[in-house]
């Protein structure tokens, strides 16, 4: 019986505050906007009894979803978000792998310090760090000042308010999420495997390619999921560093909710985003489960 109570508390909490809200989002995505409080119809009125329930369901429709499919903005935003997320993940992998690899090859005494150095930015406000890039990438920003003073360029580069700035911002912010799982996988690698490979005739590079890289796959997968999935729905970075042509679905959702006060459409956007992400999320969870079983 005690076991039941132990399971029940977090279970009910998560059901109530994680699962149920999604159901509500689904319901509202099937509702219509109204100039009312709350700004949607129909509202569920249980006092009406069974008839009320049926009337309620009758009023639900897929109007919002149809609307989303008709207006170009939305499906373009989804595609753009997926594209940006994919590119950012790859960039984060390219930037993060050498860092994680370097850390795993560093002398043992350095490791705790290096780990601390990677984690420290993570503990610092991410908003502030993204904001810092605004100062760096602006027309009059540090990067342009530096490049011009050194003589590499004559006119300031326009980086801020473009997709490039968004990529830089995303890679910067999500780097610890890529580096830590990679480092964890690389650190666990048995050094004698590489020595065996070299003993059998591999060059340093092919030993890396044939042994290290494949064995670090769990880390690559974990890190990639930890970056890709949240970036698809990212709002702050594109809003702060991107331009008017940076289409990301997170921004679209935000604008629908806060600017247009259109909760039903915002909900519909969220539902479709969830539907797109459900497969990667399930794959991520499965990978996590597998990893934990392998270690436990």
């Amino acid at each position, binding site marked *: 019986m*005690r076991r039941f109570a*132990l*399971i029940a508390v*977090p*279970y009910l909490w998560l059901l109530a*505050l*994680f699962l*149920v*809200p*999604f159901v*509500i*989002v689904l319901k509202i995505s099937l509702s219509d906007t109204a100039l009312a409080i*709350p700004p949607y119809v129909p509202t569920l009125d249980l006092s009406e009894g069974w008839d009320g329930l049926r009337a309620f369901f009758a009023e639900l429709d897929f109007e919002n979803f149809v609307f989303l499919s008709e207006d170009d903005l939305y499906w373009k935003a989804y595609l753009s978000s997926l594209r940006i997320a994919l590119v950012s993940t790859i960039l984060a992998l390219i*930037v*993060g792998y*050498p*860092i994680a*690899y*370097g850390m795993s*090859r560093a*002398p*043992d005494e350095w490791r*705790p*310090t*290096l780990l*601390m*150095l*990677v*984690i*420290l*930015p993570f503990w*610092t*406000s991410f*908003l*502030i760090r993204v904001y*810092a890039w*605004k*100062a760096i990438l*602006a027309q*009059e*920003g*540090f990067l342009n000042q530096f490049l011009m003073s050194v003589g590499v360029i004559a006119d300031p580069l326009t980086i801020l308010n473009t997709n490039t700035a968004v990529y830089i911002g995303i890679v*910067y912010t999500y780097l610890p999420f890529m580096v830590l799982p990679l480092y964890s996988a690389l650190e666990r690698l048995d050094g004698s495997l590489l020595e065996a490979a070299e003993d059998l005739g591999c060059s340093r590079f092919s030993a890396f390619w044939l042994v290290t890289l494949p064995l670090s796959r769990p880390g690559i997968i974990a890190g990639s*999921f930890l970056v890709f999935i*949240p970036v698809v*729905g*990212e*709002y*702050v970075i594109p809003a702060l560093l991107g331009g008017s042509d940076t289409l990301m679905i*997170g921004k679209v*959702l935000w604008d629908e909710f806060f600017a247009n006060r259109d*909760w039903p459409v*915002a909900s519909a956007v969220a539902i479709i*985003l*969830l539907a797109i*992400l459900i497969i*990667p*999320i399930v794959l991520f*969870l499965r990978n996590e489960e597998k990893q934990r079983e392998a*270690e436990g």
Partner: protein
Amino acid sequence: MRRLSWFNTTSLTFGFAFLYLPMVLLVVYSFNSNKLVTVWAGFSTQWYGELFRNELMLDAAWVTLQVAFLSSTLATVLGTLAALVLVRAGRFPGRTLFGGMAYAPLVMPDVILGLSLFLLFKPVFSQMGIHSIVLAHATFSMCYVAVVVSSRLVTFDRSLEEAALDLGCTPLEAFRLVTLPIIAPALISGWLLSFTLSLDDLVIATFTTGPGATTLPMRIWSAVRLGVSPEINALSSILIGIVTVGVISTSLMSKRAILKRIREENRAEP
């Protein structure tokens, strides 16, 4: 010990430079007397002064601290329970769903979490406020706590609990007197992690906030939307400073504790 190859040294140097340069620039330029942030005009601490006179900022900081403290404590309790269920409860109907719900917030985009929680709270609470943000933050933080605590639980030596039972403890006593004190560091890490996540959150807070409950990230956001501001630089530097001091001191303390332990173990005669 092995020395790092030039490749590794270069990647580490560039990597960490990339990570730290923006923060360093921020701190340096917070002492810039020029309002135009990117043009250096001389050393000045005026922006720090202005910051501390800014009532809105100070209020927001206080709100943020309250929310962070309450939500992390709640998240630690819930997350620890979730970790116990995941590691110890074995198979039960609905376990897959539970595992999914416990880990999904790790990757779920903030906008979805924010919207869904708002729509849940709206009919339930007449007014949103600190309480709604606290509940929201606790919900997504608990999964981070669950990750930290469950990885500690997995390596926990069960025979310690069996020994406690053997010596007369009920299962609850064994947990309270033996397991809990030993996994406490993981709980503390989880708490600190939740605290940071709460301090830092913009999107979910914006969705679930109410009158009088404006958090610091929200204030910062409204300031930076318009552009770079020297006051924000000062605020950023303060936050960076606090975190740096915190992280370095915990790192040093744990290093010293480990060394002390090694020395003690070596001193024990066989």
